[in-house]
């Protein structure tokens, strides 16, 4: 899902170089993930999106965020500025089989398409690494 920043008022000179991409999905783990694994997953997802954007030529990985929501808790993870430091916080719950993951990446100096590619590749890598199956938000709602 793309979000192109557009100004109706006086043009903000920096908006033209800032693009973002959001991904949302519901993921199933047949074995279930314990709280520590879920924290690693959030960290890995943020790291992979950020590093993917850097490899693609981003001037500044302005903000990459992950939000994980499940029946007994939530996690949020983020990194700014491409310094490799990732913060993970939230409320751990029980072992989790189904969770919702939202990834937001806002990048300076990279096209929307490149951000989308980095985000999709990152999520697919994490999905395989943690043995998950994915449903889109629309599939989940239906």
């Amino acid at each position, binding site marked *: 899902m793309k979000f192109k920043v557009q100004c109706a008022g006086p043009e903000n*000179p920096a908006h033209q170089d800032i693009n973002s991409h959001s991904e*949302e999905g519901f993921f199933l783990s047949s074995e279930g993930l314990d709280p520590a694994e879920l924290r690693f997953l959030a960290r890995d997802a943020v790291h992979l999106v950020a590093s993917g954007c850097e490899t693609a030529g981003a001037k*500044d990985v302005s903000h990459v*965020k992950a939000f994980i929501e499940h029946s007994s808790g939530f996690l949020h993870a983020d990194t700014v500025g491409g310094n490799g430091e990732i913060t993970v916080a939230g409320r751990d719950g029980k072992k989790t089989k189904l969770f919702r993951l939202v990834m937001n990446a806002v990048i300076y100096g990279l096209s929307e398409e490149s951000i989308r590619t980095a985000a999709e590749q990152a999520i697919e890598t994490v999905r395989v690494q943690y043995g998950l199956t994915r449903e889109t938000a629309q599939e989940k709602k239906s």
Partner: protein
Amino acid sequence: MKIVLIAGYLGSGKTTLIIALSKQLAGQGTKIAILVNDVGAIPVDGAVMQEYGLTVKDIGGGCICCQVAGNLMKTLETLATSVRPDIVIIEPTGIAVPDAIRQTVLLSARKNPVEMGHTIVLFDTSRAAKFLTYDTLKRLVSLQIRDATIIGLSKSDLVTREEVEAATHAVREINQGAEVVRISTVTGEGLSSLAGRILSAAVTA
């Protein structure tokens, strides 16, 4: 209903600061509501704040400094009539120009019991050099700093005293009138004094 704007570039620590400040202000008996405008198409900041037990309204669909200013006015009206908080903290997107939001708030004040409080703009001291390297980024960050009544030098625990001094000098060159305070949500530096300033008298635009 006092409106406090906490702006600043992406990743400058707005959400973390708002969570910390809101808890502190609520602990002093102040009723707080938060308006969040997330740059992502699927907002997450509001969800995170709600998980911490805060009263949050999300404004999506674009940037409130330009695209969805009307939504901001409508949301302020709803808050004024239904929630009636003492203070509304607005967290705009990291690319928003604060003055444009302040003008919308002042317009809303014509028909709602709203007064404009401080415009706090965070400047991430750990990324100061990068902000001042790229032209378009420098222009945006400068616009944000220009509009501040208080400039918060965030993440001051991550940098040396010399770097804080350099950051102070850089923001002072852009805005001589604003107060400059060091802030760290890790060490708690500056939080109490910022809460005190938020509670103080309204600021005229």
